[in-house]
């Protein structure tokens, strides 16, 4: 498995964790009766907080991921050549990271194609939210449909990226 795939998997795991945390927190509050569907301020505040948590979590997890990745490269280098010193290991880590972390045209194409899939899903969620209003559901249902579809769209984008990295991608 290569760098970009590992990075995508880390993003997917972060996304799943944040979405699960949101669902557990928000719906447990709703089921306990502490919040009503009409309390739009609660839903908006919760969603904004979880967007913030999502951004912060993805930054922290990416930092941890890069530290662990460097450690694993250093470990493999030491196993391959037990005689090498710290400077040689540092060089090997730098070399591997610099070639694997390059974001080239294939990465950009995969990112674009996957983002399109994610946007389509999020768009369907927006339409679904509006339909829920037409069907006389509360605005909180519409907000939740939109929020969850955006999160699910971002997860779908990650899965699409993994698929393209595995099966390949054509320019046309």
């Amino acid at each position: 498995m290569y760098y970009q795939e590992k990075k995508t998997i880390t993003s997917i795991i972060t996304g799943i964790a944040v979405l699960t945390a949101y669902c557990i927190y928000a719906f447990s509050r709703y089921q306990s009766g502490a919040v009503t569907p009409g309390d739009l301020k609660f839903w908006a505040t919760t969603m904004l907080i979880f967007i913030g948590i999502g951004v912060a979590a993805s930054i922290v997890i990416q930092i941890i991921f890069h530290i662990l990745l460097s450690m694993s490269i250093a470990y493999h280098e030491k196993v391959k050549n037990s005689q090498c010193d710290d400077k040689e290991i540092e060089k090997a880590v730098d070399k591997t990271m610099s070639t694997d972390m390059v974001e080239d045209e294939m990465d950009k194409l995969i990112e674009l194609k996957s983002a399109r899939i994610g946007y389509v899903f999020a768009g369907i969620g927006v339409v679904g939210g509006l339909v829920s209003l037409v069907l006389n559901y509360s605005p909180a249902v519409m907000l939740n449909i939109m929020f969850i579809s955006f999160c699910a769209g971002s997860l779908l984008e990650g899965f699409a990226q993994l698929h393209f990295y595995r099966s390949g991608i054509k320019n046309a």
Partner: protein
Amino acid sequence: MRNKIEITNNIRKLRFFANEMTQQELAEKIGASRQTIIAIEAGKYSPSLELAFRIADAFGITIGEVFDHEV
């Protein structure tokens, strides 16, 4: 409808004849990632003209000697 063109390449062979150049070395030379080189070699990705020229330049040959096509 036009037939699809299958683009093939000789990168693996060219690397072998260039003193067993590794995928990482080629990636460094052309400024791409190792994963992209692997995908191109396996026929899973067709590079842009610019990248194709850079690959040809890395081996010091013409683009036609690196890539071929089948209709």
